[in-house]
């Protein structure tokens, strides 16, 4: 049966139900699309594409209680298709290998303040939502997709591997690299805005001193 024939069996009540469910999750759908695409115009197209695909496939959804997760799976698959299009491939950044891991915590952590202050958490409290959003949107696509699927969507490594058709080990390594790049971007941004808390820090990570 064609998609058109299948959706022709869907009733007006189904359409009202569908519209209601989509409306209830639109903020999350759009938010996830913006993070995946790193761009609002592409995200808008991705949401529209996802809604159209979900409607076409609605007759195949037997358990409507699982609608939410089902739509997010469609969103992820639509994103992958979008990435494979010529427009996206042109912007696809090569993976830079060999860059060192960056840890915000190691930059901010001061063992001597362990009992009296917490510059790491103070730092996170000072970060604006926009700072974090901008840093994620700026990640190279291959890393951003994995970070968003794990940290924003809450998918398991196995689910991400399935969506992206890559081995679980690759999910793990891209996630580590993506998080490292994210933290480096946040650090650079904090340096620019003078957001660092506590005593001035050098550009090098603080040395761990033996307190004994």
């Amino acid at each position, binding site marked *: 049966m064609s998609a058109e024939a299948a*959706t022709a069996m869907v009733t007006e009540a189904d359409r009202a139900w569908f519209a209601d469910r989509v409306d209830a999750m639109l903020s999350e759908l759009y*938010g996830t699309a913006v*993070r995946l695409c790193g761009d609002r115009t592409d995200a808008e197209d991705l949401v529209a594409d996802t809604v159209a695909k979900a409607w076409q496939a609605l007759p195949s959804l037997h358990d409507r209680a699982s609608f939410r997760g089902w739509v997010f799976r469609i969103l992820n698959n639509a994103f992958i298709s979008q990435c494979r299009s010529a427009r996206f491939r042109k912007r696809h950044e090569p993976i830079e290998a060999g860059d060192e891991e960056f840890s915000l915590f190691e930059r901010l952590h001061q063992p001597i303040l*362990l009992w009296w202050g917490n510059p790491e958490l103070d730092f*996170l409290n000072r970060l604006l939502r926009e700072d974090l959003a901008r840093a*994620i949107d700026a990640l190279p696509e291959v890393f951003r997709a994995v970070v968003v699927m794990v940290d924003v969507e809450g998918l398991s*490594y196995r689910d991400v591997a399935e969506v992206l058709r890559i081995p679980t080990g690759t999910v793990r390594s891209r996630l580590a690299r993506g998080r490292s790049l994210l933290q480096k971007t946040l650090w650079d941004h904090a340096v620019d805005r003078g957001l660092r808390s506590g005593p001035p820090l050098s550009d090098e990570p603080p040395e761990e001193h033996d307190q004994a």
Partner: protein
Amino acid sequence: MTKPEIRSCEEALRLLASHLDGELGRGAHEAVERHLSMCRSCYSRWQFERRLKENVARLRQESVPHAVSDRVQQLIRRFTVAGE
């Protein structure tokens, strides 16, 4: 059966991301928990990474521009249903 143990902070830190992502088996997960309950330094690191992960998760919600909600509503109105 002996419980898996974390022998060093390096080992705990290697497992930290998987622990936060819920990707460790029960034995390893509990071993990390035991280490965190005894090591303030690793616990601080865990606390920081967890907070950052929670902040990233909040980005899932985004205010939807009218243009986007209008486009989606129009799209749904155009969908065909039985009898049309």
